[in-house]
C-alpha cells in the first residue's frame, strides 16, 4: 500500500504550494499516472481521501489522467502503446518489448479557491 505514501507526498507538496501561492482550499487535483507507474488508481483514490482529511485538500476531487505504457518492439522496430506490462505488441503480437515510457507519476495542476 505505497499509494498512501504517494498521496501523503502529493498532499505535502500541495500544502507547501498553498502557503506559497496563498490559496485556502483545493477543489480538484489532477494527476497523470502511467500504466507502468506501479500504482493502483483505486488505492490512490482511497489513499487520497484518507490522507487529505484536515488538510487544504480535504474534500477535493482527485482526477487521474491515465497515460499509456510505451515500449519499443524489436520485431516491428518502432515504438508502440501497451495497456499493461504483459501485453503483447499490438502490431505483431510479439513479446520482445523494451518499455520506454509510461512510468509517469505527476501532479499536473490544481483548481483552487
Amino acid at each position: 500500500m505505497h499509494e498512501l505514501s504517494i498521496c501523503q507526498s502529493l498532499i505535502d507538496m500541495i500544502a507547501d504550494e498553498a502557503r506559497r501561492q496563498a490559496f485556502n482550499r483545493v477543489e480538484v487535483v489532477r494527476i497523470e499516472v502511467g500504466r507502468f507507474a506501479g500504482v493502483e488508481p483505486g488505492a490512490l483514490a482511497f489513499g487520497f481521501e484518507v490522507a487529505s482529511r484536515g488538510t487544504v485538500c480535504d474534500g477535493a476531487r482527485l482526477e487521474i489522467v491515465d497515460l499509456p505504457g510505451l515500449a519499443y518492439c524489436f520485431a516491428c522496430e518502432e515504438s508502440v502503446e501497451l495497456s499493461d506490462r504483459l501485453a503483447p505488441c499490438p502490431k505483431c503480437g510479439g513479446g520482445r518489448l523494451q518499455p520506454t515510457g509510461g512510468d509517469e507519476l505527476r501532479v499536473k495542476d490544481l483548481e483552487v479557491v
Partner: protein
Amino acid sequence: MCVTCGCGGGETTIDTGEPKRRHAHDHGHPHGHDHSHGHSHGHDHSHGQDHGHDHAHDHAGDHAGRTVALERDILSANARLAADNRRLLAKTSSIALNLMSSPGSGKTTLLVETLKRLGAVPAVVIEGDQQTSNDAERIRATGRKAIQINTGKGCHLDAHMVGHALEHLPLEPNGLVFIENVGNLVCPAAFDLGEARRVVILSVTEGEDKPLKYPDMFAVADLVVLTKTDLAPYVDFDGEAARAHVARINPSVPVIEVSVRREDGLKPWLDWLTTQRRAALEARRRQIEAELAALDAGVPA
C-alpha cells in the same frame, strides 16, 4: 510524520547498534539518535525546500477560483533526497546497492556470506524491516557495521530514511553500501534511495513465474539474482523459464545464479560486485582527468 513521504510516519526508528543508545531506545525515550522522523535535526542533506516563490502575495481578488499549474513529479521530494544521498556516496566513490525481494528469499543470508568473502573490501549494511534488529545483528556478527531501520507499518524504505542511516555509517573509499529493503515485491520499486544499482533477488523456492506476477519490480532491476539454486532440483524450478519471464519484463537485465551452500556458489555475484566497484573508480578517474584538463586549460574548476 515523515516530512518526505509520510510512510509509516513517526514509527520509523534507526538502530545504530551503539549500546548506550539502544538502552535508551529499549525504554522508549526518543532522543538524539534513535529518532522518530517527526522532528528536524542537523544533517548534511537538505530537505528539499523550494526557493522559487517564498514571498506571500495579496490574492484578495482571487476568490473566484483559479488553476494552479504544478507539472511536477509527485515523488519529487523523495527524488531530491535520493540525489543528496547519491552526491554523498559519490564523494567516496561508494557503491550503494538497493536489494529488493519478497520476504524469505535469502537476502540477509546472501549478505552475511558475501561479507565473509569480501576480505579487505570496505562494506557496510543498512537493514530495513518493519520490526526487530535481527538482521542487523546477523550482519554485525560478521564484524561489519550495520544500521537497522525499522519502518513500523511502512512497507518500503525511502530516501529520507536512508539519508539518516548514512549519517551513522563510515563511508570508506570505493566501499560497498548494501541496502536491504523491506521484504516486499511491490512497494519498494517506486522509491529511489540514491542507490547506484537495484538488485532484485528471487529464490528458486518461490517459483519461476514471480517476474510475471510482480512485473513492476523486475522492470526496475539492474541485476536479477537467483538464490538457493542448490534447491532447484527439489522444487522443480525451471531456470530457463525464469530467465525468459525476466526477459519478457526487462529484456536487458542480466540474471545470475548463486548458492551459499556451494564452495564457489557466490562467484558470479562477487564478480559483479567487483565490476561495480571498478565502474565507480573509472567514473572517478574520468572526473579527475576532466579536472586536470580544465586546470591545464586555465579554466577555474
